[in-house]
């Protein structure tokens, strides 16, 4: 059994209440940080831990914190990104729903480190039922002196609010999220300036994913050095993986980074193997935006080494033979799956979610959906495959935010590894069969 830092008490009855959470050692990091550490010392521990942003980009969290503009006389903000919308990703939802106080604790300790006096949790509107869960937890934290004025008798004060979005994948991009939090359309901003200098209300702001913030209490409690001992190399600590698709046991699993992919898919501790006794065909390892890999390349690298659940091992081989850990949205496809049809659902998704600001993304995602629709419905042409690749290349790198890349990569990788299937689809004159 791997070590659990986030989900250790997830099955404890009543863990969603302050009382039980506190009994299990909850809010210890707030006490330790506020009473015995300076804000910079907390940031230092997060730096030492090697924690990387868990939303998908994997940028070192401590370094991101250290960029916050301390010379500015404007208020500083911490904003939690709970806009979880990457297809295949449902870990933040699980965490907030089951153990909401862990996020609240992380928000308090992290806000203290950053010098924020007001913080927000921006949560996707579809998770409205979780807004209620978080607000109840926040009320309990206020009632017990962990939020509000002079927390635990110290001179640190913090107000924390939950802010619901209203249905837009793009608001998971941090500057679109800030626009949305300011009551506008979710159009990503040009950078620089980065949020650390001019974020919410043009004030210094850090935006972190739910899981990133929820990991901070463990780091403060155990020290950054101890946290960094878990995992392999620059992939330190534990990670929540959302496992979905054609597996026997879909769900959220906390793994120590470094677990072999093969063990993750086939062991009873995790996915429990492929459903219906079928064979593995392909995996999208880090949410719909990352390259898809066929069975042989997800289990072993091109060099023949076992592929591990780490940032480095999953990206071994670059985009030619590798992929990315991303958000940890692990989507498994069995041998009956049509790669063309699965890709069509992704292309439809990105077209629907493009904010429309940059022409390559707005137009390109529409064309990719249209072409994949006709390939999938038996109206395709052989040249469609090259047109798809051409469009994807013209989107990639040519947009303000990474949604363009996220739309292009699945297309390019699916054709790279499964070209024959696309050629067959182009020659077929009837709709592909829906998988059974």
């Amino acid at each position, binding site marked *: 059994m791997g070590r659990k830092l986030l989900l250790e008490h997830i099955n404890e009855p009543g863990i969603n209440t302050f009382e039980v959470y506190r009994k299990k050692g909850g809010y210890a990091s707030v006490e330790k940080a506020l009473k015995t550490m300076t804000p910079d010392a907390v940031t230092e521990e997060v730096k030492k831990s090697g924690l990387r942003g868990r939303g998908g980009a994997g940028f070192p969290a401590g370094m991101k914190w250290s960029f916050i503009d301390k010379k500015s006389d404007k208020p500083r903000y911490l904003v939690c990104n709970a806009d979880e919308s990457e*297809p295949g990703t*449902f870990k933040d939802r699980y965490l907030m729903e089951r153990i909401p106080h862990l996020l609240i604790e992380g928000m308090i300790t992290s806000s203290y480190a950053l010098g924020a006096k007001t913080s927000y949790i921006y949560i996707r509107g579809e998770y409205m039922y979780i807004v209620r869960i978080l607000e109840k937890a926040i009320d309990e934290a206020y009632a017990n002196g962990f939020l509000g004025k002079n927390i635990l008798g110290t001179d640190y004060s913090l107000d924390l609010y939950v802010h619901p*979005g209203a249905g837009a994948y793009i608001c998971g991009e941090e500057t679109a999220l800030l626009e949305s939090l300011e009551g506008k359309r979710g159009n990503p901003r040009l950078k620089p300036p980065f949020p650390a200098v001019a974020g919410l209300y043009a004030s210094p702001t850090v935006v972190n994913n739910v899981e990133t913030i929820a990991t901070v209490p463990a780091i403060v409690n155990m020290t950054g050095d101890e946290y960094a001992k878990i995992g392999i190399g620059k992939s330190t600590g534990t990670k929540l993986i959302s496992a979905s*698709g054609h597996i026997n046991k879909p*769900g959220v699993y906390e793994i120590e980074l470094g677990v072999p992919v093969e063990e993750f898919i086939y062991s009873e501790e995790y996915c429990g193997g492929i459903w219906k006794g079928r064979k593995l065909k392909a995996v999208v390892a880090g949410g719909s935006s990352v390259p898809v890999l066929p069975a042989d390349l997800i289990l072993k690298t091109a060099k023949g080494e076992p592929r591990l659940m780490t940032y480095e091992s999953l990206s071994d081989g670059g985009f030619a033979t590798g992929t990315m850990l991303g958000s940890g949205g692990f989507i498994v496809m069995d041998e009956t799956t049509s790669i063309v049809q*699965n890709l069509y659902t992704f292309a*439809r998704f990105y077209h*629907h979610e493009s904010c429309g600001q940059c022409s390559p993304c707005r137009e390109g995602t529409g064309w990719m959906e249209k072409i994949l629709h006709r390939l999938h419905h038996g109206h395709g042409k052989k040249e469609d495959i090259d047109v798809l690749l051409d469009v994807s290349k013209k989107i990639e790198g040519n947009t303000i935010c990474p949604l363009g890349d996220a739309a292009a990569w699945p297309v390019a990788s699916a054709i790279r590894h499964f070209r024959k299937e696309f050629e067959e689809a182009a020659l077929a004159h009837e709709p592909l069969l829906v998988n059974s």
Partner: protein
Amino acid sequence: MLNEIDGMNTEIKFSPEALAQAQKIIARYPQGKQKSALLPLLHLAQSEFDGWLSPEVMDYVASLLSIKPIEVYEVATFYSMFNTKPVGKCLIEVCQTGPCWLRGADEIVAYIKKKLNIEVGETTADGMFTLKTVECLGSCGTAPMLQCGANFYENLTPEKVDELIEKFRTSGKRTSYLRLNEFQNA
């Protein structure tokens, strides 16, 4: 239009309770940044006014926040949870993205279409159900799924869909993103 069907007062004004709630929401943001309350207030307005945002409702929200109506229109039309046209009492939203598709979302959509005798985007003649397909709702491990009101209904089968629709019909109540229905999974 739906106001008349429901026999409700057509004057656009929050109830005292909703107005108090709106003031509480506005107070979460710094002085002069009240526009930040726009999304939560539109949710509240949609819930108060029959599940959709008419131009009059949007103008009312603009007046509450002292912003221009266009600032509300451009936002209301950007986000997929805001309806700028009337919808049925139960807005059934079925996720259709990859992970749900892998577990049979297409079959669930086809089943509901046949059962309610409507296409995606249409409302039943009695104004009870509107069917919509949506993109990933973060329920990939419990797919296929649909959202109705604040509830997620997961691991769907045709039998579960039958039970759910029956329960909605019996209840007859309008659903809202801000309220949990009185029943969870069928």
